[in-house]
């Protein structure tokens, strides 16, 4: 719209406190009054026609006088105080660009269209019951000029179809038409992607009144327009997306969700050793120049959640290939690869997912180098097998967007670094969806470089704790235990049942044990605690130095050494058992005499 063509107008407002007491009587306005820029304090949405001219709130200026006054007051920018009690406002409120056009269109139409036009401005019948400012704005935009379309597709047609001047009849669009317009723009945007399949016509709802809107493209059809048609159009559009014809499309071209899709989650952990940019890396890294260097320190783990699909036909060809490769590997004799003891803060693998999540998918475009891709399936961890599937990128063509991970391996020449678990003698291509039949569609995959696997396995073996003590023969254990003191032997006895059994079975004695070995006194009790020796006994002696006082009628007795009241209180002195009434090295006769003296 040419801004110069706009008729200037002025916004008037009664003096503060809403009075035109100083206004002169005005003749009735020849044209319809312009809508008030300032809302009536008493309420909103009042008609421009404010009643008799002598009303206090009647703006004094009319449309006929506007041209004359406009020379002195620019549009919406008058700042001069009006005379005769009128106050000319500078601005009423902040006007957004969209609103400006709308308001301008309104005013221009009002100026040119006459009174009948004013009423049509407030017609809400075509807008429905839930008209909103957005719809009104959209409608006005249609009237004046189509806004620049970001896609660039719908702008021109809309502009062509728009009325040349605001004064033309407005092609009032229904809600369905609005939706159809949006859909058209989306379709035009989608059309920019190459589609091998012939472009399917998109059904749009026709205009409610008049002829078909020119701005909606040639694909528009005429006919009745209501919300039901919009729903039909949407349903038809979705049906086309899910049609088999779309399965041949690449992933990024496949518009809708399909069963068997894979959910991808990425985990990035730092601290990984820099990789050598050789063939040991996943082949697809070569298609991303510069990325290995950037990710030298990061380890990207891609977790792929393979969702169950009851029909393998619904699986994309790439996923079927992966499953087929996994089946081949499982049928062979692949060495079970240990899970990486990843430090990543990476959390433990998520639990097995439920199979009933068919139809759920997330389209993820893998655009970076992925170090690991882990599939988590529905099977429990005990049923999960770990295979290594080497996926390489065909050097002939770059991987398309969104297909980086789902690319198939190379051809008969095989990948450069075949993983140890697989025998990629003949890698099926993307067009080989058939694979070994398998009831379970979930597998656990792990794709890492061969060198990394080998090094990791060695490190795990080195770091893996092994119970060497438990691997020793029993007589060797007895030999070792026989070199230990009582406390160490007691600690060993409390370590595990195996050690306890060996000590008790073989009667291991500590090096500092004071149990008399003399057959004559072997069964004598300990001098302190009166405990008798048992085979394999490595217990410590606890006794009370001072005797326990018996309960007396006049009070409770207790151990004098530790003041404990219970008679069975453990001894407060700790030591080794000693049943050597006499030193074992002395003669037997002297020993017997000593025992008699001690008694």
């Amino acid at each position, binding site marked *: 719209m040419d801004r110069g063509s706009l008729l200037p107008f002025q916004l008037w407002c009664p003096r503060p406190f809403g009075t035109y007491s100083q206004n002169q009587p005005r003749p009735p306005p020849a044209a319809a009054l312009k809508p008030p820029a300032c809302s009536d304090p008493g309420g909103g949405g009042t008609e421009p026609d404010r009643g008799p001219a002598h009303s206090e709130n009647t703006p004094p200026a009319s449309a006929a006088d506007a041209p004359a006054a406009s020379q002195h007051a620019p549009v919406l920018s008058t700042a001069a105080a009006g005379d005769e009690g009128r106050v000319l406002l500078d601005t009423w409120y902040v006007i957004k660009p969209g609103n400006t056009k709308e308001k301008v269109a309104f005013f221009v139409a009002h100026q040119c269209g006459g009174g009948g036009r004013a009423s049509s401005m407030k017609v809400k019948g075509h807008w429905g019951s839930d008209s909103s400012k957005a719809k009104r704005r959209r409608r006005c935009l249609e009237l004046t000029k189509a806004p620049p379309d970001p896609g660039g597709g719908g702008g021109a047609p809309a502009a062509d179809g728009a009325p040349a001047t605001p004064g033309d009849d407005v092609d009032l669009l229904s809600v369905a038409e609005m939706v159809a317009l949006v859909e058209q723009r989306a379709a035009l945007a989608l059309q920019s992607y190459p589609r091998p399949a012939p472009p399917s016509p998109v059904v749009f709802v026709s205009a409610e009144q008049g002829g078909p809107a020119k701005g909606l493209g040639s694909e528009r059809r005429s006919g009745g327009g209501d919300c039901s048609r919009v729903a039909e159009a949407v349903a038809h559009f979705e049906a086309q997306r899910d049609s088999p014809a779309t399965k041949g499309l690449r992933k990024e071209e496949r518009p809708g969700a399909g069963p068997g899709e894979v959910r991808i989650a990425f985990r990035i952990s730092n601290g990984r050793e820099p990789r050598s940019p050789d063939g040991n890396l996943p082949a697809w890294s070569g298609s991303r120049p510069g990325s290995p260097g950037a990710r030298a320190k990061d380890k990207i783990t891609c977790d792929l959640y393979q969702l169950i699909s009851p029909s393998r036909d619904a699986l994309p060809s790439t996923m079927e290939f992966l499953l087929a490769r996994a089946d081949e590997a499982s049928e062979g004799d692949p060495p079970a690869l240990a899970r990486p003891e990843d430090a990543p803060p990476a959390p433990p693998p998520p639990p097995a997912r439920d199979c009933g999540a068919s139809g759920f998918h997330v389209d993820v475009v893998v655009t970076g180098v992925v170090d690991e891709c882990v599939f988590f399936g529905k099977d429990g961890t005990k049923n999960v097998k770990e295979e290594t599937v080497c996926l390489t990128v065909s050097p002939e063509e770059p991987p398309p967007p969104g297909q980086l991970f789902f690319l198939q391996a190379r051809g008969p020449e095989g990948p450069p670094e075949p993983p140890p678990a697989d025998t990629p003698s003949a890698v099926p291509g993307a067009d080989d969806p058939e694979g070994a039949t398998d009831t379970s569609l979930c597998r656990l995959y792990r794709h890492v470089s061969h060198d990394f696997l080998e090094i990791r396995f060695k490190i795990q073996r080195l770091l893996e704790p092994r*119970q060497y003590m438990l691997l020793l023969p029993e007589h*060797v254990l007895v030999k*070792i235990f026989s070199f*230990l003191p009582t*406390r160490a032997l007691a600690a060993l006895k*409390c370590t595990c049942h195996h050690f306890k059994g060996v000590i008790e079975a073989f009667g291991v004695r500590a090096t500092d044990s004071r149990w008399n070995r003399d057959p004559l006194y072997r069964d004598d009790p300990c001098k302190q605690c009166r405990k008798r020796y048992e085979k394999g006994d*490595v*217990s410590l002696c606890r006794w009370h130095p001072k005797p326990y006082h018996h309960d007396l009628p006049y009070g409770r007795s207790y151990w004098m050494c530790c003041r404990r009241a219970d008679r069975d209180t453990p001894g407060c002195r700790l030591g080794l058992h000693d049943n050597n009434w006499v030193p074992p090295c002395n003669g037997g006769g002297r020993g017997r005499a000593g025992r008699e003296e001690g008694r």
Partner: protein
Amino acid sequence: MPSIRLQGSDGEIFEVDVELAKQSVTIKAMLEDLVMDDEGDDDPIPLTNVNVAILKKVTQWCTHHKDDPPPPEDDENKEKQTDDITVWDQEFLKVGQRTLFELILAANYLDIEGLLNVTCKTVASMIKEKTEEIHKTFTVESDFTEEEEAQMRKEKLV
């Protein structure tokens, strides 16, 4: 000096002096059973429970202790000590747990008493030094129940 060929569990052939090999009661018995003459048979003696790497270590120890007197018989009354390990043996046994326990198994299989004694003493010394961390040092998991542990405490074992 005549030598014999020993084949480890990994298939490698290791040649060692006969006199050194005879420190092993097992090899000595094999040699006597095979009735090997001076020319000897070129067939190696298979040692399925010992790999060549450990065999080399054993040979090294036997070479150093070739002039040692035979160890006395084990006396129960004699107090056993672990501080009588020689410096050379201490340095020789400054190896990892895996190698140490493999030497014990090799000494047990080859029946080399001196080597078995010194290796067992070394392990005993390790246990004495880390009595409180036996679980951690030797990666032994406790399989006692809480009731059993309470009973042991009650019996003053712990």
